Structure formats: C-alpha cells, structure tokens
C-alpha cells in the first residue's frame, strides 16, 4: 500500500513531492467534469448541479474544455461511435484524470446486453476508477460515487490515468480490435486539427 503510494508520487511530480498532500487535497476538492453527455445518464446531471443536490458545494463543476477537465463521467451506454470520441477526449485530458462510469450499461451492457451497437465492457477500452451500478442511478448514488473518487484521490488509489499509461499496449489492442487498425489516423485526423 505505502509502496504503491510512494511510487505514485515519484511517478507524478518529483519536483513537487513536498507539496503532494496539498495537491491531493486540491484535486479532491476541485473535480471538474468534462461536459460530454455520452448517454441517457446525462439527464441526471442538471439535477445534480441544481438546488436539490448541488454538487458545486464540493467544488465539482462541468467544464466544456476537456484540457481542463479532471473527471470523465461516462453517463450511460457507450456506442462504438461515441467510444472513439471518448477515447480521443480522454487522451486530450491532462494527467491526473479520473473516469467514473455511471449506470449498468458501461459495466456489462445493462439492458442492451445483446445490442450490436453498445460496448459491453467499458473497462476494456479505458481504465475506470469508480463504477456506479443502476439504471438510472439516483443522484445520491452518483454523489456517493464522487465521494468514493475523492477518497481514492486522497489515498492515491485513483490511478486510472497511470494504468492507462502503463498498459497502453493492452488498451490500444482492445481499441484496435473494436475499431480496426489505424482508426485514429484515419478518422481522428478529421476531428482534430493536430492529430
């Protein structure tokens, strides 16, 4: 456990090792969500942001710019067409970044378990830090998931971004199996000027 934490720090920012607890506290308290409504779970985002649940109390707010985002909420089922965009957006986000999947569908397909156009196991393609089951998960459950991510960040266990770097070949192999070789160059080039 402690060994893993040390590794985490050295990997991350050697020059700021001293301030690491401070940064962790700041990261925990200021999770910006990438505004990408990937599925029907997006409908529970406005209630979360408004009077009854109000996640801005905890410093969480949606941000349209993926470069500034920390938390990627996969809100509901993911189709292959969306997954391409999700992967590109995820790679645009800057480390450290966290992924929370929201609802049963990204976990195992949910009600769309036999659909030809829904990705069944999301964690094959991108690393996941916290998963919330249910369809639709209640806002309380989402808040609970976010608290879980906060706890994980504080203890240094939210290391999805690091796993993605370490096991990039494996993730890339799965992605290529689904989309075919060279999909980034072929299609990503059209979406993003700098790819």
């Amino acid at each position, binding site marked *: 456990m402690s060994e893993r934490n040390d590794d985490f720090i050295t990997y*991350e*920012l050697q020059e*700021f090792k001293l*301030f690491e607890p*401070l*940064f962790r*506290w*700041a*990261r925990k*308290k*200021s999770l*910006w969500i990438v*505004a990408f409504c990937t599925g029907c779970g997006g409908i529970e985002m406005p209630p979360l942001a*408004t*009077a009854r649940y*109000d996640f*801005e*109390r*905890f*410093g969480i*707010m949606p*941000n*349209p*710019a993926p*470069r*500034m985002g*920390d938390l990627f909420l996969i809100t509901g089922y993911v189709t292959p067409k969306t997954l391409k965009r999700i992967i590109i957006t995820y790679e*645009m*986000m*800057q*480390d*450290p970044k966290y992924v929370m999947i929201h609802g049963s569908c990204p976990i195992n397909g949910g009600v769309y378990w036999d659909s030809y156009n829904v990705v069944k196991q999301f964690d094959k393609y991108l690393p996941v830090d916290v998963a919330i089951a249910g369809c639709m998960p209640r806002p309380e459950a989402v808040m609970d998931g976010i608290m879980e991510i906060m706890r994980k960040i504080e203890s240094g266990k939210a290391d999805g971004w690091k796993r993605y770097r370490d096991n990039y070949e494996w993730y890339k192999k799965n992605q290529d199996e689904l989309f075919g070789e060279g999909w980034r160059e072929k299609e990503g080039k059209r979406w993003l*000027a*700098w790819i």
Partner: protein
Amino acid sequence: MIGIDWKIVLEVIGMLIYATFMGFIFMGIERKAMARIQRRVGPPLYQPILDTLKLLGKKESVSHGLIYDFGPVFALGATITALLFIPIANFQLFSSNADLIVVAYLLEVPMLGIMLGAMSSGNPYSAVGVQRGLLTMVAMQLPYGLALIAIVQHWGSFKLSEIVALQSVHGWSITVPALLLAFIVFDIVFQAMLGLEPFDIITAPAEISMGPMLEYGGKHAALLFTQHAVQLFAETAFFAVLFLGGASNLIELLIKQIAVLFIAIFVASIYPRFTIDQAAKFFWKWPTIIGIIAVLLTV
C-alpha cells in the same frame, strides 16, 4: 548607484500577494453569490484557490510552441503592472502625470496576451473566440473612453491619486450628476471587461465552449486563473478609485470593491448573452449616447 529600497520591495510583494489572494476570494464571492441567486449552497469562498492549485499540479502534455506559453505570462505581467499603477490605500508604486490612461489601457492588454496564446493553439473555436474578443474590445473602446473623458474633464486631472484626493474633498464622483451617467456607462463596460453576461461572448460555453480558454489546461490555465484574479482585483479597485472616492485603508477599499463586484454579479445573473454583432451595436448605441451626454455635461 541607487540602493534597493527594501521597504518598497516588501510592500510590492505584500501587495501582490494580497491582491492575488483577494482576487481569488472575489472569484469565490462571484461563484457563491451566483449560487445563492440560483438557490444553491454554492462552493466555499476559497474554491478558486483550490482550482488553481489543482491546475498547477497537473501534468502538461501538450504545448503549441513559444507564443502559446508566452501568452498567459504576458497577460499576467500586464495585469500586475496595471495593478501597481493604481493607488490602493495610499500605496502606489508607479505614478505619473497620466497614470489614468496607462491603467485604463494596461487593463486591456491581458486580453491581447490570452488572444496571442489562443491563436497559436490552432483550435478553430479559440480562433472564433479571439475574433469575438477583439471585436468586443473595439466595440467597448468608445463608451469606455467617453466615461474616462468625463471623469478627467470633471476633475481636471489625469492623475489617479489626485482624483482620489479631489473626491475626498468634493465628494464621490457618483454624486456629480454628469459622472453618475459616466458611472452607468463604465458599469456596462465593466461587465464586458470582467467577461460576465451579457457580454461573456468571448468564452460563451454553449456556443464556442470557452473560446480562447479551450486549449489551455494545467499550468497555463493556472496562470490564467491567477491573472484573472489579479485583474478582478485591479479592475474593481480602479472602479472604486474612479467613482467611489478611492480609499484610505484596505478595509474601506475592500468594501467598495465588493460593492462594485455585486453589481456585476446581479447584472450577470439576470441577463442572457448578446451575440457579438448585437453587443457591438449595443455598445455604440446607448452607452455611447449616455457617455456623450456625460462628456457634454462636464464641459
């Protein structure tokens, strides 16, 4: 050889730290007050500090070259320079006979810095944001200048410390009818300077998703946040100095700054966003007319 005056150096450093800190708190107040209007609890007041810290702790993976890195630094430098020209409770590092003009235009330079960086990032949304930003700047120059001319003509001085001194003798600027009009004009322009509705055309999250800020992340964004905090402090202080009689101590200044800030927040939370052409038309219509009346009244 001129010896370094350590007292001034310490004062400058202290002032910068104070301004940055208070600027962050102002940003927190902005978010908190908006949340209260929207019937929410809202984030804690120190939330922007946490955001900036977090952004500082991020690993930067992309850079778009030297200009991209230089933009935020340029913006921050210009803001700090502007701050040092403003008389903040008897402290003013730089002073010249025409520091009003200097401050007024130094406060617009940061925008150019951001634009510089955003343009070199190559994102089309950023490019659209930059175009909008430049057009807004052009549009607001006229009423902005008119309001300043009214102030200068009435008090007969380009020197900020003199304007403060005169106000302490003759009463605040807004008690003069002509300058009250100038105050209204300045307040409308102020909304655009802070990038709040109805003039948040530059960032417009639903249209161009943050515009120039879209490509910035990590440490660049942290620098821009710091810059925004200092600028918020400097602009509110400038406003308070010009129209609310300046201040003799920091507490008085703080109260006036927060009062100014709250006007901006209330306006921002009840008005939607203009489009860029409507904003330009708007600026050249009512604020300009009121500004001309204010100038004519002060002659």
